[in-house]
């Protein structure tokens, strides 16, 4: 059962920030609530104040411009991202990832800000946005700061968000030419979170030489995990099957999966290897024709 709370409904972002300043210690922010409400119903999260920002349309936007790239407001829903023509054009991996995120009902109401702030290590947006080099802007009454998304995720279900801050916006750098980002997850039910997942970003120099690579593993550690050793092995090299095979093995070695009722650590490591190999292959071949 949900514990009683005082419901706060700020009419603007600035009012919200003020409320956070006043109640921050005992308050939780609710947006789509698709993760939070479940936790509250189970009695695992019991805030005295619940601040609702779902209705703040000033945070609900998807913008793109050639110079700055994309900016997605925190209360944009998964469904809006999934169906955004702008994102489909410039970052097709995002709508693709959203399409397989949970189910339509969840995507209709849940938001990107809520998802990232929840920091579920098995979450889908995290690895993809990290692979795209995304940053998040955090606002408080005292000002704002923008940090790389990678630094935003601190631990299982823990972020760098301070008690008086709201995640305001996700920004993605403009797409590089001859680059591609791919994502997949391994699950048994299509709408499930991944037993493990993998996002790969590859940017090519002229020809087939990889100048920038990001491999981000999902649900293979407490936060989306950059397989940096593997990435280094690829930078400056020409893409090739044998190399991908070797690199995928390194991803597997460097991942930190756990054993749970769904899969053993050993099997997860194997899946990391398989997914990394496949996503590298795919990103490389898509980047070539870009």
């Amino acid at each position, binding site marked *: 059962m949900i514990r009683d709370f005082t*419901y706060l409904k700020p009419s603007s972002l600035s009012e919200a920030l003020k409320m956070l300043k006043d109640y921050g210690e005992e308050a939780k922010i609710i947006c789509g609530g698709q993760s939070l409400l479940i936790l509250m119903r189970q009695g695992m999260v019991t805030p005295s104040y619940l601040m609702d920002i779902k209705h703040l349309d000033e945070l609900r936007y998807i913008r793109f411009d050639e110079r700055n790239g994309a900016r997605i407001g925190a209360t944009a829903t998964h469904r809006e991202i999934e169906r955004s023509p702008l994102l489909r054009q410039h970052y097709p991996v995002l709508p693709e990832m959203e399409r397989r995120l949970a189910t*339509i009902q969840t995507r209709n109401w849940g938001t990107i800000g809520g998802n990232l702030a929840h920091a579920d290590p098995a979450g889908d947006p995290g690895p993809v946005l990290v692979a795209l080099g995304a940053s998040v802007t955090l606002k408080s009454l005292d000002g704002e700061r923008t940090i790389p998304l990678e630094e935003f995720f601190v631990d299982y279900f823990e972020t760098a968000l301070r008690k008086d801050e709201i995640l305001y916006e996700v920004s993605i750098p403009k797409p590089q030419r001859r680059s591609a980002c791919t994502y997949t997850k391994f699950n048994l039910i299509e709408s499930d979170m991944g037993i493990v997942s993998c996002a790969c970003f590859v940017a090519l120099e002229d020809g087939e030489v990889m100048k920038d690579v990001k491999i981000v593993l999902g649900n293979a550690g407490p936060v989306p995990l950059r397989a940096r050793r593997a990435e280094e092995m690829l930078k400056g090299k020409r893409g090739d099957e044998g190399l991908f095979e070797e690199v995928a093995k390194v991803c597997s070695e460097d991942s930190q999966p756990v054993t749970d009722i769904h899969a053993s650590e050993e099997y997860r490591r194997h899946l990391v290897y398989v997914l990394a190999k496949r996503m590298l292959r795919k990103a490389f071949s898509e980047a070539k024709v870009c």
Partner: protein
Amino acid sequence: MEKRLIHLNVNGEDYELYINPKTLLVEAIRDIIGLTGTKRGCESGSCGACTVIVDGMSVKSCSVLAVQADGKKILTVEGLEQNGKLHPLQRAFLDYGSFQCGFCTPGMLMSAKALLDENPNPTKEEIKEGIDGNICRCTGYNSIIRAIEAVAKGQYKEG
């Protein structure tokens, strides 16, 4: 804890509720307004039995606070029929036997309606994705998919 006054428009009728803000939308619909067509089947937002349509979008009413639906238009299964005339999806479900125990049916109909309202010509894949948030333990889904396909193909045109 302070109660809040909210207004919900459900199936075209306005309701005024004075509620504890922790009230879930499904509780407002079932227990306060008294429309028990919408069901509940889990505590983890997984089964979809509580699916309703809010401002044209299918949502799980167990995972939405009633206060967040304040001022919005809500459609539940009871709102599908008009003056005793069944909605094409309901007629199709009858023809194709797209239900057995019927417990998931209200939520399933809502997902189906939201799908067709947004995408009147879905592929089979899109139909499957459109209802994959609704668990049915009885039918094996294929009869539901056939019914939705039939409606999409115009088999139940009004008039």
